[in-house]
């Protein structure tokens, strides 16, 4: 495990398979005082204003795609955005919602991590990536408080003879209403990852729209509690093959975390889904 920006670190490997880590700033000095002032300013400013200009919300807890093995590995970064220590857990799930065992460098094979970060503390974990076969699932930032914890995951593909490829997996919210994912399957391949971070079955009607906005296909996605699905669009929804457009998800009630991925040969990138659209809802019949 690599840890940065820390002056105190303790690690306990729990028998339960949940690794525990504490990271904190223990030295105090002028720099710390400045940081405290900055944090207090933030506390009294944007965070409490109600304006949606803060990038981390308590609902931002889904890492919609998580991979390890078969030339892939995933790094995770977390930072405490509060002015007090915070504790949280990171859980790994298989597609069917069961616990996913993940080899984390320096921690062993675990199905989750328990992390404590002091003010402004941050931590990084990385999967071993040594397994011959690809294992994929999703991860969840789980807290018993409403403290702000920011972070991201980055997955990387390492193939001998060429540069590593990387893409960020942002920690996203669970979208509980209407959201849209752009796709481009002309010279590229678009994939989608969806995770249901709730204890309810979720069914999401989907409208697939061409570039002029017309509906060219309609589908429904079903995800059980804590289930995950990731697929390339042209293979699963063949109506998207060779086309560009937008996929409209008509989630209602319990939401899902979602992420788009675009592949261009060996290169790839990720992108957010889009919310707050004003389209007239037209669910599949």
């Amino acid at each position, binding site marked *: 495990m690599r840890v940065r920006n820390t002056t105190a670190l303790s690690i306990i490997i729990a028998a*339960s398979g949940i690794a525990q880590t504490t990271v904190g700033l223990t030295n105090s000095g002028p720099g710390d005082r400045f940081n405290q002032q900055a944090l207090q300013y933030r506390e009294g400013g944007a965070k409490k204003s109600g304006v949606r200009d803060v990038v981390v919300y*308590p609902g931002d807890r889904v890492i919609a795609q998580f991979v390890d093995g078969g030339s892939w590995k995933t790094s995770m970064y977390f930072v405490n955005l509060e002015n007090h220590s915070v504790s949280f*857990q990171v*859980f*790994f*799930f298989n597609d069917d*919602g*069961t*616990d996913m065992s993940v080899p984390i460098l320096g921690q062993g094979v675990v*199905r*989750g991590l328990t992390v404590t970060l002091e003010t402004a503390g941050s931590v990084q974990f990385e999967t071993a990536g040594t397994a011959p076969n690809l294992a994929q699932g999703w991860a*969840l930032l*789980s*807290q*018993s*408080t*409403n403290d702000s914890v920011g972070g991201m995951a980055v997955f990387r593909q390492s193939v001998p003879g060429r540069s590593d490829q990387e893409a960020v997996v942002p920690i996203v919210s669970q979208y509980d209403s209407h959201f849209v994912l752009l796709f481009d399957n002309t010279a590229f391949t678009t994939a989608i990852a969806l995770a249901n*971070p709730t*204890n309810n079955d979720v069914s999401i009607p989907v409208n697939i729209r061409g570039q002029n906005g017309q509906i060219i296909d309609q589908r429904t996605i079903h995800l059980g*509690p*804590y289930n995950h699905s990731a697929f390339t669009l042209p293979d699963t929804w063949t109506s998207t093959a060779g086309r560009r457009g937008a996929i409209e998800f008509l989630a209602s009630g319990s939401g899902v975390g979602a992420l788009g991925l675009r592949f261009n040969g060996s290169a790839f990138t990720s992108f957010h889904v889009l919310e707050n659209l004003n389209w007239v809802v037209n669910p599949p019949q």
Partner: protein
Amino acid sequence: MNKLLFASAAALLALMWQPAPLSAQDAYHGGPVDARQHGYEHGYRDGFAFGRDTQASNREQDMVNQRLRTADKDYQEGFGSREQYRDGYTEGFRSGMTDARSGNRSRLEELFRPKDPNYEPDRRSRDDRVDGIYSQNRWPATHIASDIGYRDGFDAAQRDRQQGRMSRPRRHAAWKNGMHGYDNQGASKDQYRNAYRAAFENGYRDGFGNYR
């Protein structure tokens, strides 16, 4: 003189052999009014119920975290400090869940059975004036009904079990009456009775069941 001394000593001995007096909190039929202990008891009940129904998978652990994020969802100003209630609930939830998952004997009896051995929820002639403490503290009437009803049901179930009776919560006078602790404020009689009876049945189930 000797007779007087003997009488005085006997009176003193008689006083010393009296059962220990109940503390004020023990006498309240809906439980403690201290915010932390009140939260603890609600948390313990919820945690014990959660723990006996679930395994410690990531999914269940996340559900615990989500539950504890809203540890103060039932909090009311009349309970006292919100922070103490939340802390007590969280501690109680974890404690109850651990007891259930570990197969430990639950603390439900210790927490919810009345401390007064002479208390019987079915007896109409009991003195309930102490229960005015809750409405004086501005607890919502249906919350009072729930807390008193749960305890009365728990106690009734334990008495039935000890006496080898069948499970029969609705045959108890306390359930039929459903008004223990009602003081004509904050809720209609029907609202109060419904809340009391539902809680009585929950308490009865826990008191009669195998979760001890």
